[in-house]
């Protein structure tokens, strides 16, 4: 048996899509898992200090989570997420993330970086996890078992998401308040922006607080998202971008939503183009009110709230008159 190891998993980036997989896998191996605390000012400051200034906010936040974990664990878990679906990529920064951290100039523990790359087939994702675990000394039978459990856990997580719960509701075992408004809002954005309450300045709870029901991209079945995303004139090669465009297209036709709030990171590469297409389309197509909120480390809470409140008021008035 191997000695007890402790692995750090940052509560950032695609934590919101994959955490149940990673948690179950390592727990089943008897590994102790340390998840970084929810993003706070200190984490953000650490990240801003450590990352290059040109990096987008989510990447800076990720650096902060890594540095917060660094003193407490034996290994850091930083998967290399290249592509989750054939013909797409997540984002160049995700592809280089383990390397960026390894060479960030701070003393950090060794990085475990299994690779997700749909081009190499589904099995490759499994193989790279098993390999990582075997390098830590776990035997194949055990790792295979752990992987099966983990897969099952992830599948049931995705099922719950599609049943209309948000990642945070599931992961933190919460219940959103009962909506008091008859309107539903679509909250668009990358999961690490809209579900990180510090980064998004509590956006989703503010919407709940005003009585809205909120839908997010994770709630649509992937098949439907794909079908809607395929309407673009050219195959869109960013997986998160497909999720956003597919979701927006779907709801714009459904006409069941009263407005769209789109959250983007300042300087986000894919969103600079995807967001532009979305906004132009929303304006032309359905006359659904559209609010674009841009986040970076300098975004002031006051300004953001004012814009949000004005937007929500506008939605209310539209329906009164």
């Amino acid at each position: 048996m191997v000695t007890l190891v402790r692995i750090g998993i940052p509560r950032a980036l695609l934590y919101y899509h994959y955490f149940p997989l990673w948690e179950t896998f390592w727990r089943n191996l008897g590994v102790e898992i340390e998840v970084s605390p929810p993003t706070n000012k200190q984490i953000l400051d650490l990240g801003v200090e450590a990352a290059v200034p040109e990096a987008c906010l989510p990447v800076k936040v990720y650096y902060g989570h890594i540095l917060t974990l660094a003193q407490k664990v034996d290994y850091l878990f930083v998967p290399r997420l290249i592509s989750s679906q054939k013909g797409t990529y997540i984002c160049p920064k995700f592809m280089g993330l383990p390397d960026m951290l390894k060479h960030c100039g701070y003393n950090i523990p060794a990085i475990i970086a299994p690779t997700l790359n749909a081009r190499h087939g589904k099995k490759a994702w499994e193989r790279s996890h098993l390999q990582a675990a075997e390098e830590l000394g776990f035997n194949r039978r055990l790792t295979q078992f752990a992987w099966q459990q983990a897969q099952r856990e992830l599948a049931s997580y995705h099922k719950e998401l599609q049943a209309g719960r948000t990642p945070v509701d599931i992961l933190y075992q919460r219940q959103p308040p009962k909506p008091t408004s008859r309107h539903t809002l679509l909250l668009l954005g990358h999961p690490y922006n809209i579900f990180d309450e510090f980064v998004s300045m509590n956006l989703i709870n503010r919407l709940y607080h005003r009585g809205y029901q909120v839908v997010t991209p994770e709630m649509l079945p992937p098949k439907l998202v794909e079908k809607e995303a395929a309407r673009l004139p050219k195959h869109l090669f960013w997986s998160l971008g497909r999720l956003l465009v597919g979701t927006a297209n779907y709801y714009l036709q459904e006409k069941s939503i009263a407005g769209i709030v789109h959250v983007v990171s300042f300087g986000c590469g894919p969103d600079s183009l995807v967001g532009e297409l979305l906004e132009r389309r929303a304006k032309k197509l359905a006359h659904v009110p559209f609010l674009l909120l841009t986040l970076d480390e300098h975004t002031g809470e006051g300004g953001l709230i004012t814009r949000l409140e004005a937007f929500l008021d506008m939605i209310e008035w539209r329906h009164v008159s």
Partner: protein
Amino acid sequence: MKVTFPHMGYLYVPLRAFFSQLGIEVVVPPPISQDTINLGTRYSPEFACLPLKINIGNFLQAAELGADTVVMAGGIGPCRFGYYAQVQKEILADLGIHLDMIVLEPPQGHWRQLFRGLKSLAANAGPVTVYRAGALAWAKLKVLDKLAKNQFVIRAREKVRGSTTQTWRIILDLVDQADSVQAVYIAAEQGQKLFDRIVLEPHRDVLKVGLVGEIYTLLEPAVNLEIERLLGEMGVEVVQSVYLSNWVMTNLVLHTFHLRNDGEHYQLAAPYLGSFVGGHGLETISTTIFYARSGLDGVIHLAPLTCMPEIVAKSILPQVSVDEDIPVLTFMLDEHSAEAGIQTRLEAFYELLKTRKQRGHKNNIKQIKNESTILGRKSIIESLSWH
């Protein structure tokens, strides 16, 4: 049909030749100026990368001159370039500007795809004409790349400041005007003779600096604020990492026939970057290592401000710089970058390189590394660049 295309360095020379040979009327956009940049910035998404914005400026100015069709390249990600055309189409349409867009998608192992794109351009041209047009464009590209390389050697040693740049402009026109492959070679010979006539100071102690980074910022002087000229006139011999003819060769030709071989880049970069990251991110790392080991005095890294692959590269370069003992200076450029700011930083970098060279250099970087433990590299690089 009046065809236009985006500017990138002297790419307009072979492109003009290519389309003209096919019997297509060409509108070369006016050279990129502050107006072009302002126009493009005004109508493009704020965070779009700089090349997209300047392309828009090119298209708008070309449309004013009567262009009705844009020809440009596409891509398959992960970089934004592959989706430029789709976004640009929408921007132009919303402005009420009608430009047809012909997007040449990079052949993913299917030469037919590329030819299909070309075919919509030259429906009436037979294969011989297309071949001739290609041969002429290729000849121009080859000779210009070669002369550009010589230009860097000469400019660093010219006696009269500006004489190389002046000659280079004449050479561009000579090659641009040549209308057959033979005429291109004659123009190239003439050009070389003009270069030979420039008075040099052969014993000047020149520094050698390599340029790495994103292709558009490397090749478009209006965007990199003529960094090649600025460096040359300071007495620095520039070593360019990207030449258009190589780029066309690897990305269009070799890729199409599955012959592309990036093995060397991957191998060199492997200790620092374990994956392709789109654009030229990986090459930035591998080439910096290569330059360090070839004995260059320093490396300058150029990229548009929000460029994703180069942000990855920039995050890693400080470690490469320390390990390989080579100073690296990064410029992330946007529409507000000004020559004055660059000039000052270049001069500081130059002083650093000169001092290092005079001292017989090497070990000073390592020393700093030992002194600073945790806040490691950022401070190293800063101190390297400024003191």
